[in-house]
């Protein structure tokens, strides 16, 4: 079993080759990319210690993204399920509607610092694409978003946002026409344009530096949550933190400040989509998009196709950092089907005022399964990491309605 190091940020627990626990991550990339990612690593290590840059980041988080996102108890759902107290960290209330806003903003800031004028990113659900397009516009950068044609059609509202913000949306029609192909195409674009383009990988995946930047950016969520918990409870109570996992960027941000706690004190639970679930179905380690990770493959080692109603979860791989959390026993992973996620959305929106997108609906599904088995003193917190409007059409198709 891999042992986590205490008091060292999770993202920094790698060796000089970028491996976590000798097993996950690394830099499996073409020679052409080596120098640009090395330069980016140096720049990032400098910036994360640079007070002026941190001030700028905080300024953007506060004034551009709207500051602290709310944390509140779901009284009706708690009463209905009759077990644990259920709390919501409503990250979807951010300007930008999802945790990807942090990650996109930080990438645009880094791009600006690097002196590059072009920024390119991949997107599945369109949340990262939309936020990157908006951040690029704000910071006067030229932006290209790579997106599978299947996702372009199922997440149309976000595509409109991207185009309205002036980004070029590049349709990717190869393979399964979803996120995995979008990431591949975006990396190809980077290999061909790394001299003038900053690559913003949409989740905590890819070569070492890309997942570090991502998880560093989203960790804002747990910094806020820690303060909010202490304000509400006077201490960090016995907790279960439930988060959906696609690539795993929101969970890493939601959990970051709590990694060093004992798992009996703060339990970390990741919820994947049932047919895109490398972490919860004992998939093998494979190399995908530059890193070793738990990933769905066929026997020959070809990357497997996945199926999920949720575009953001329709991805065969997972962050190397989740591999580390799984193998160290720090987090546990489960999954929920399309049907379960839809049922969760139905119940949550009937009882409460939040409107989760399909991605966090998976996390809510696990919360609904778990809460009745627990005591009143147990605190469940769900990261409601995305707003549902982008899935309105899918919800109407599947459920026959979309709540007001």
């Amino acid at each position, binding site marked *: 079993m891999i042992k986590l190091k205490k008091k060292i940020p999770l993202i920094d627990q790698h060796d000089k*080759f970028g491996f976590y626990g000798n097993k996950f991550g*690394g*830099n*499996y*990339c*073409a*020679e*052409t*990319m*080596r*120098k*640009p990612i090395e330069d980016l690593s140096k720049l990032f290590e400098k910036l994360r210690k640079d007070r002026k840059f941190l001030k700028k980041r905080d300024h953007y988080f506060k004034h551009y993204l709207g500051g602290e996102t709310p944390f509140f108890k779901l009284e009706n759902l708690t009463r209905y399920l009759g077990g644990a107290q259920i709390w919501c960290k409503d990250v979807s209330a951010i300007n930008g509607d999802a945790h990807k806003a942090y990650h996109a903003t930080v990438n645009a800031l880094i791009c600006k610092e690097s002196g590059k004028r072009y920024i390119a990113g991949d997107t599945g659900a369109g949340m990262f694409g939309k936020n990157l397009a908006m951040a690029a516009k704000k910071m006067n950068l030229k932006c290209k978003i790579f997106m599978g044609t299947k996702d372009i059609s199922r997440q149309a509202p976000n595509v409109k946002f991207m185009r309205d913000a002036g980004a070029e949306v590049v349709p990717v029609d*190869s*393979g399964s026409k979803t996120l*995995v192909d979008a990431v*591949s195409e975006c*990396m*190809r674009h980077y*290999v*061909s*344009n*790394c*001299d003038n383009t900053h690559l913003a990988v949409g989740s905590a995946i890819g070569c070492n530096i890309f997942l570090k930047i991502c998880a560093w950016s989203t960790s804002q969520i747990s910094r806020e949550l820690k303060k909010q918990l202490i304000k509400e409870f006077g201490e960090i109570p016995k907790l279960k933190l439930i988060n959906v996992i696609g690539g795993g960027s929101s969970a890493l941000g939601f959990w970051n400040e709590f990694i060093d706690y004992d798992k009996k004190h703060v339990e970390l639970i990741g919820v994947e989509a049932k047919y895109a679930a490398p972490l919860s179905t004992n998939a*093998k380690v*494979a*190399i*995908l*998009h*530059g890193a*070793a990770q738990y990933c769905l*493959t066929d026997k*020959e*080692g*070809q*990357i497997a196709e996945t199926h999920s109603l949720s575009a953001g979860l329709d991805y065969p791989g997972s962050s190397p950092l989740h591999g580390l959390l799984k193998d160290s026993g720090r987090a546990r992973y489960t999954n929920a089907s399309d049907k379960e996620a839809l049922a969760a959305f139905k119940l949550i929106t009937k009882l409460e005022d939040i409107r989760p997108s399909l991605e966090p609906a998976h996390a809510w599904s696990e919360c609904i399964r778990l809460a009745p088995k627990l005591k009143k003193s147990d605190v469940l917190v769900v990261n409601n990491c995305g707003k549902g409007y982008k899935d309105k059409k899918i919800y109407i198709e599947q459920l026959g309605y979309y709540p007001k």
Partner: protein
Amino acid sequence: MKNSINNAFKIAKSENRPALISYTVCGDNTKDKSLQILNSISKDLDIAEWGIPHNCPTADGKDIQNSSYRALQNGIRLNDIFSLVKKFKKTKPSKPIILMGYYQMIFNFGEKKFVQKCKASGVDGLIIVDLSFPDNKNFAKLCKKNSICFVQLIAPTTTVKRMKEIIKSSHEMIYMISTISTTGSVLKYSTKRIIKNFNVIKKIKPSKNVVIGFGITEKTISNLRSADGLVVGSAICREITRSLKDRQNPVTNVSKLVRKLKNKII
């Protein structure tokens, strides 16, 4: 056949020309067809590269992606590739063959088992696109132990300091990527500038055989003839695609193309 890669360069040098190296995808568009193509073009080749198709090829342009897709659609597997190499080597024992692919395919198969299979079937060299220096040190050693040439890559973005380290740990052949791109794009720099980059590498260690690849076509090949070797891949894959689309025989069309390429460098 030991050192057959070195021999191939020696022969080309004695004829005062660069070595001609082809890249096709093993199994494109079927197992038999890909072997027929290779058999037919090998008379004009000095070294043959065969691609191991992977469905997430992050460094390949459209042409090679199409070839890989066709090969996978027709069910090619790693074990088929080894037996096809064996068949090829049976008739052309002195023609060096290099397999080129992504690390996932090897990782999944098992490094040791993979290298042993390569050795047993007659593979002379390996190019692993996404296993770059220094991460490839152990694997390169494993190859050397089994008399397989591990081909290091050098890109336009590689610094001179890094270049020296890469050359130091390289075997008999080095692959220079011509331009900042995936495979098969147009050359972004003049051929003059590409040769200048090539000379920088040669100056560090003149005895290494340095080949240039990525974006080489009928139009550009003759201007690059001072290299030790030239790799043409996407242009050939494109010809296979075109032949299949026009319902023509890819074997004859690709052979004609390779003949033309050869004529441009002799």
